[in-house]
Structures are given as C-alpha cells and as structure tokens.
C-alpha cells in the first residue's frame, strides 16, 4: 500500500485542531477483518512462498524471519476476479493447499438496502480512501426500486475535462437579500443530526473533525452541544428539535447554521426517543434531565400549527443569532412540496427533506417501514414545485434518508437536490454492521452508538476521524469522476438533469 499509515500517537497530540485533508491508511480495528472471500490454507502447505509472489493484493503474508505464514488477510482478497489476470492463488499452489470461497459471514451480512457489498465497500473506502477496485458493488443496493433501479446515462465518448478543475462545492445560502454570510461547502454532502447520547462522544467528535477537514458540516442532533465540539464550531450545525434538549442561547449563537427538526424520516410523525439505558449521567446533564429516565421528544412542535407559526420560530432564531442561516428539516408527507414552499416563505435558507428510509437510533418498526414517501419521489416533486414558484434558485434543497453511496448522492442531485445529508454511511465507515441493536441495553456492541464507558473505548478518535476523512475522499473521487464523464466542471451543473438518468423499470432505455 502506498498510502501513509495513520499514526495514532502523533495524531493524539492535536485532537483540538482541524485535521488535514490527507488520506491515510486506517485499518479495520478488529483483529479479524471481514471480507467477501475466505481464504483457507490447508496443512499440506510447504511454505514455498509462491502465493506471496503471485497475489496482487498482499493476502498472503510471511514476515521476514518467520517460518510460517500469518493467517491470510482474506479481506484484501478480490476472489475469483483474480482468475482474469491469471493470479488466482489456488491455481498456482503446487500443493493445492489453498482454497478460496465466499465467506460465510458475507452471506449473513447486510439487507436489501445495505447489501453486504455496500457495507464492505464502505469499509474499504474508509480504510483506503479510494474507490474499491475488486468486484464489490459499491454503487447500488438490492432494494429493487428507487436509486437502486436508477442509473446514469454516461456518454460513450468522454469529453475532455481535467479532473483537477472540477468543483464539487455548493453554496448553502442562496437568498437574494444578503443580510447573512454566504456559506460554501467543498463537497455537496454534510452530516445529519446524531445526538449526544445516541452516539458516542468519539463518533460525534470524529464527524466534526472530518467535516472540518473537508470544509463541510456535521450536526449536533437534539441532545445538546458538548463543549468538546466548540473548537470545531464552524463546522457544526446545531439542531433545535421539539424536545429543546440542551438548546441555549449560546449554542445558537455559536452556530453558522441552525437546523429546525420538524420530523425525522425514519419516524415521521413521531418524536425522538432515547431509551432510559442510554441516559447516563453525562447525557442527563447535557439534556438537563434525570439519569435513567427514557426521554421522548414530543411531536410536533406544539407551538407550530401553521406556516405563520413556523415563521415566528425562524424569526426567533434569526434574532438570537443574526449571522446564522436557517435549515428546516422536514420529512416527506404527500404535500411535501407545499411544506417546502412554506418554509421558504418563512425565511429558511436550506430545505432539508428527510425521506422515509433514513436511519435512527431507535424507532418503532412500524414507523420505519411505512410512513411517508421515499426520498427519490420527493426530490423531483419539490424541485419542480420550487421552480414553478420561481424561487428555486433562492433556496438550497438538500436530501437525506437513504443516501448510502456517492452514486445515490449524485442521483439525488440529478433529480433536483443541491446536495445531500448522510448519516448511516458515516457509521458504517466507523464499523457499523447494521445489527439494529443500537437501542438495547448498553447500546452499540461496536462502540459507535453508545454512551457506555467501556464500549466507547472500542475506537480511538484519530482512527475514527481518519476513517471519515477517507470516506469523504472516496466519495469526492467518485463525484468528480461522474462529472468528468459528463464533461461538467461543477456539481451545480448536475442539479435537476433528469435527462441524464434512466430507470431500469421504464420502457425508455435510450443510451445517451
């Protein structure tokens, strides 16, 4: 591997600084990384070293001075694809001691939306910072609809654009009346709200630091603003949600963007829910509540029953912080287009649509599966409606709720969004396997979504930060590549270009 290794010790000296935007190797934190393939070495091996020579990926390792091999690094293995280049180790082993098969763990990993391939490829991106080159499907899942059936129609002849001049930056404040600062982010992606309490402090800090490195934002969620985030305040959105947990004047004044959470895609129509087990002393102090008591955010804002009430809300925040821009996060009811227009007239700068298949720390299964509209339908509706109202260029439309890959992000933009908000993908990059147990007992067994003292220690901050910086790099590379293939120089040019998309289930399958 040519990339530099992450040096945890030296990084630990500068935890309060914004890290540099450098890709560094951030290896899987477990002893036995999971790969798509499993490589078995039989007892008939004579330690000849032929496999070390032949393997293009460093699966077989025999360190200097060792008589025996280490256990094969089967997470590096690209499997049967290796046959194409004639370097499939079982074919070359003189003793026929090697066997390559699909890993049984791979077969039990993932679901329709987050397939095993998507989880593993996200892990690879977080590890290497590069686009995976094996046979992992890193663009779409297997849900059978929406983004998974929509594809780009790339022209056969690639226009001559240099990758270096392509910009993926977007502007978040597009209002004509220019009373507030412009806010520009370098990638059309920022992080969704994950509250203190639902995720570990390390997860929270790592997100803020990585977003700092990439000049974009993360969001505090509704659980208050931990002080350790203050050094990164220019890259942190603070959220005002129905529970108003930890919302104070100074937290609002600190933020460049304040987000109103009206609803969350994974449980629209229902408030937030933090189970009692997760309300530790620190969480309770932050939220000004009692440890051990489950916390419900009411739904909805009981002071908002109309667009006029909503405007009052927005004005309140604008008054408290005259330099903040306002984002309004709503989920996707059938009249989502009306809601979006209403939010604009109430003075919002960013309209954040959270589709029905978003993530959550805990939600009733009935809400996650059923309520509200998938984001793929909502984006073109809102984009079209804002356009017909003549206000499309005065507001930033961001989409979330099921954006898993860079390709999902690009498709969302082509459908009409300016940018996207992600959440689950970041957690997967940190090692989430989507076991769905974030909410129970001590919380996440992998130390990502927990406040348990011991479990938190399962990952270090420099490592977690690096994983996310790497992830963003891989996404950036892919977005640049998509733009390059279309001959575009800016991501803004892709917005609303539905003519560049095709849907597998529709009659019209024209090539570009």
């Amino acid at each position, binding site marked *: 591997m040519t990339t530099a290794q992450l040096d945890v010790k030296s990084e630990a000296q500068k935890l309060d600084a914004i890290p540099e935007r450098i890709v560094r190797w951030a290896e899987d934190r*477990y*002893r*036995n990384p999971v790969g798509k393939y499993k490589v078995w070495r039989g007892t008939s091996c004579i330690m000849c070293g032929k496999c070390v020579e032949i393997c293009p990926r460093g699966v077989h390792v025999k360190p200097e001075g060792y008589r025996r091999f280490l256990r094969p690094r089967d997470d590096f293995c690209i499997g049967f694809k290796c046959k194409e280049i004639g370097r499939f180790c079982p074919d070359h082993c003189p003793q026929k001691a090697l066997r390559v098969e699909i890993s*049984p*763990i791979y*077969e*039990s990993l*993932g*679901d*329709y*939306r*987050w397939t095993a391939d998507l989880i593993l490829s996200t892990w690879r991106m977080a590890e290497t910072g590069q686009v995976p080159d094996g046979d992992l499907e890193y663009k779409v899942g297997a*849900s059978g609809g*929406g983004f998974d059936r929509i594809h780009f129609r790339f022209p056969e002849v690639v226009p001559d654009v240099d990758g270096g001049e392509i910009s993926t930056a977007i502007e978040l404040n597009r209002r004509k009346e220019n009373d507030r600062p412009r806010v520009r982010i370098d990638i059309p992606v920022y992080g969704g709200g994950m509250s203190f309490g639902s995720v570990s402090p390390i997860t929270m800090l790592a997100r803020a630091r990585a977003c700092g490195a990439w000049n974009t934002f993360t969001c505090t969620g509704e659980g208050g603003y931990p002080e350790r985030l203050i050094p990164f305040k220019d890259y942190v959105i603070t959220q005002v949600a129905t529970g108003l947990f930890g919302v104070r004047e100074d937290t609002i004044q600190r933020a460049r963007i304040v987000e109103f959470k*009206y*609803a969350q895609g*994974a449980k*629209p*129509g*229902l*408030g937030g829910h933090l189970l009692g087990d997760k309300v530790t002393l620190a969480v309770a102090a932050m939220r000004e509540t009692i440890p051990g008591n489950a916390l419900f955010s*009411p*739904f*909805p804002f009981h002071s908002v029953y*109309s*667009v006029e009430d909503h405007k009052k809300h927005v004005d309140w925040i604008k008054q408290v912080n005259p330099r903040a821009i306002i984002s309004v996060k*709503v989920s996707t*009811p*059938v009249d989502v287009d009306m809601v979006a227009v209403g939010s604009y007239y109430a003075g919002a700068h960013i309209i954040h649509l959270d589709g029905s298949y*978003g*993530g*959550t720390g805990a*939600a*009733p*299964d*009935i809400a*996650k599966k*059923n309520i*509200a*509209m*998938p984001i*793929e*339908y909502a984006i*073109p*509706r809102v984009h079209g409606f804002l356009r017909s109202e003549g206000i499309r260029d005065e507001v930033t439309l961001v989409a979330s709720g*099921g954006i898993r890959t860079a390709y999902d992000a690009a498709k969302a933009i082509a*459908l009409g969004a300016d940018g996207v908000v992600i959440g*689950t993908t970041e957690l997967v990059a940190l090692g989430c*396997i989507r*076991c*769905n*147990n*974030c*909410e*129970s007992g001590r919380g996440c*067994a*992998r130390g990502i979504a927990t406040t348990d003292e011991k479990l938190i220690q399962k990952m270090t901050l420099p490592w977690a930060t690096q994983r996310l910086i790497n992830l963003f790099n891989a996404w950036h590379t892919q977005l640049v590549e998509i733009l390059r293939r279309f001959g575009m120089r800016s991501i803004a040019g892709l917005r609303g270009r539905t003519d560049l998309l095709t849907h597998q289930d*529709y*009659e*019209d399958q024209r090539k570009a």
Partner: protein
Amino acid sequence: MPKKYHIPTRPAPPRFKRVGKYGIVDRREDCSACHNCVKRECIYDCYKDEDGRLREIDGYVDYLYECKSCLSCVQSCTKGLLSRKVNPEFAALGDDTWGPDIISTTWYQAETGKIPVSGAGYGGRFVGEGFDSMWTDMSEIVRPTRDGIHGREYISTAVDVGRKFNRLSFDRNGELSQFPPGLIEIPVPVVFDDVHHLNLPESVALTAASAAQRMGNLAIVSSEKLTEPFNRFAKAIIPLYEGSVRANEPWLKKVQMIEVYDGDDVVERIGEAKELNPSLVVGVRAKLDRRSAQRAVELTRRGVEVIHFYADAAGREREHGLSRHISRATREVHLALVEAKLRDEVTLIASGGIALPEHLAKEIVCGADLVGIDMPIAIALECRLCGSCLNGLSCPVELDRIDIGYATQRLMNLMGAWRSQLLEVLGAMGLREVRRLRGEVGRAMFFEDLERESFGPIFGKRKTEERMSAAT
C-alpha cells in the same frame, strides 16, 4: 372524557426455545483456550451458560442462536475460529407471506406486549406486493398531529359492528317506524377469525374467545366447534353457521352476533336467525373475489348489516389465475358502496393475510371498518407454521396442551402491542379516532401513483409487470 381503554399486558415468556435468526459457528478444534477469551466480552452475555448448556442432550446448540449478531467475537477471536451464519431453521420458518421476520416479530409482541423498536434504518425492499406497495402518510407543520401513546390526548380505536340508519323514519302517528337494530361497539378494530388454514386443537379457538371476552372484543368460531367450555365466553363469540342457523340453535340466544355464509338464500337465513333472537347482529361471510364489489352493494340494498369478505391466507382474492391483493379489492368494494350511497349503512370486515399492525392500518385506509385476523392467533401461541397438524402429526409446540390463561395473556399481549402501534400511526396522521381512517386514502400513498406522478414526467412509461418478469 371516557376512561382510557387499555389492554393489560404482562410478560409471558415462551414455553419453547425461540428460533433465533443468527448463529455462531464455533470451530473449537484449534482453540488455544486463551485466558482472555473473547466470549467473556460478549455484551449480551450469550456465552454465559455455555459450559452448562453444552452438556444438555436436548438443544445444546440453542445458545448459539441467541446471538444478537454484533460480530464482535467473530472479529476479535485470537485465532479467528468463530464465524456467523443465518440459522437455517429460522430461514425455513413459514412461507412467502408468513415469513420468518413476521413470525419472530409476532412472537416478540406476544411475549412482551411491547412495540417492536429497533435502531438503524429500514432494511427491506423498496416496494413489494400488496400492503408493501403502499405507504401511510403523516402530518407536518400544515396539519397538526396528535400525541400518540406517550401523549395526553385520547385517541379512540373503537369501531361499531352493525347497521346504522342514515335517517330515522316515522309512521303516521309520529312514532318511530323502524327500531334501530343492534349495534356492537368493540374497542379495537380487530376481531379474531376462525383459523381454518391449519388443523388446530380446540385450545386455540378457546384462547381467542377468552382473550376476546377479556378485551371486550369478538371472536368468530365455527358453530360446529362450539362445545361446553365455550359457554363461559358466550358474549364474546360470533358463531359461524355453514348451513341452517337451526343447526346449533341454543347459541343464537346466548350471543350478540353471528355470521352466516353467503348464498342465494342468505337473506332468508338472516331472517330466520333474527326471528329467534331479534337483537342479534348478523354478518354475511363471503369470499373475496372479482364480484365482491357488486355483491356488497346487492347485500347492503337487501338490508344486510355486516359483510365479512375473506381472502386466502396470503391475502389474495379467491380466484383462479390472476388474483388481486385484499388491499386493492377492498378499495373497490368500498368505493362501490360509496358510489351507491350505502357505505355508512354497512360494516365491512376484511380478513386474510393480515399479518402485522401496519396491515391493519392500511386495510382500514383501503376501506374496511375492521379486520379479522387468523394466523397471528396461532403464531402468538408459538405456532411455527410447520404444517405438522395438517399431516396428522403431533404439534412441536404442543398447542393442545397449552394453558388457556397463559395463552390468553399471550394473545392479549399481541393485541396490546398492535393497538399501541395503531395509536402511533393514528397519532402521526393527526387522527383522533380510527373510524375516520376508514377509506381515508388521503393518508396513504400508493406505489403506482407515486411512480406515475414523480417518475412519469422523467422516465416516461413504466414497464408492465409481465414485461418485467419476462426480462428477469
């Protein structure tokens, strides 16, 4: 304000080991017995009793299936000896409609009475058959919502079974010329249907009747099955008559409602029953098929007060060849009744394929007043849908020996959880009572409509289903 209706739930642990989803594969041959074995680190304590359990003759692998699948031990074992697999027994549970996930969530609810809550987003397909091709809608900003189960607001889930006149009519003397027929209010829009798909022991029907009695609800039981032990629950039972109502006459006087199968002489049979017990509510049970809409209008015109359409176990019309899903067929029936200005005169019950509380909400959105459930009753009592009873084999979960009190609690737990979830959905929609949900398609989105409206202008014409299946 009336007293809040509440279904008392209480933990009712399963009698038999649950079938877990994931299992750990443990290759012990190479184990070097590290003193800091990763098994001790399991945060769910899965391995705690391993030593003792390994010596059990029966089910010594069961502990491996309690795995919550965090992969921590698999990824940390010094020698990499552990692996994970989906439990083959779990994967083989049930069938296409009643799959392992539905069975295990039903078990969970019957055991705990709680709403299934989980972390991370939804992992299922984008869209599926029947109920999976519709989304319910909620309110936001522009429409107020209601506080669901955690809130202070009272949301009613009660529905009426029976006939309601559109208007009163009077004779020449100014007296009421028609007396309103009996009307039963039940607190939850779900009745227990006769489980006819399986060959279940009497205990299951008794459980349904007993749970119905305790909940103030109703249970449909085939009239031939009504033996002495059912007498205790008479008020909660709807006897279902295949032929003449005189076949089991004593019951007509004991119950509030009966059901008779549809047929040419159905109105006469209803008359016969009402002669014997004038306050009786009589429902007509009819197959759900392509003629259902027309039949519903005919029956309502002839004064039928309750119509119960039953689909097959998969929620499909009882037709050969292409059959529609109960959601779409019910919508047609509902609209036909609305069109004929008869909708409010008749109560519509729909059953078949209702497996989850979301199906309940969606079926009511499609036009039913209430639903009947069948298989979930058996599953709540730990049935694994193995089909042994249909082949005359003994039941692996010994349903014939189940204690009725315990079984009643399991079924009430399930209904308690279902009702709480219905409240969540109603709250999110901003509805105060389930009666208003009926036919309220404004609170639902259908796959075909969303595709047409959102994607039609972009991608043009969607391939027909036949073309799609031909392509794959």
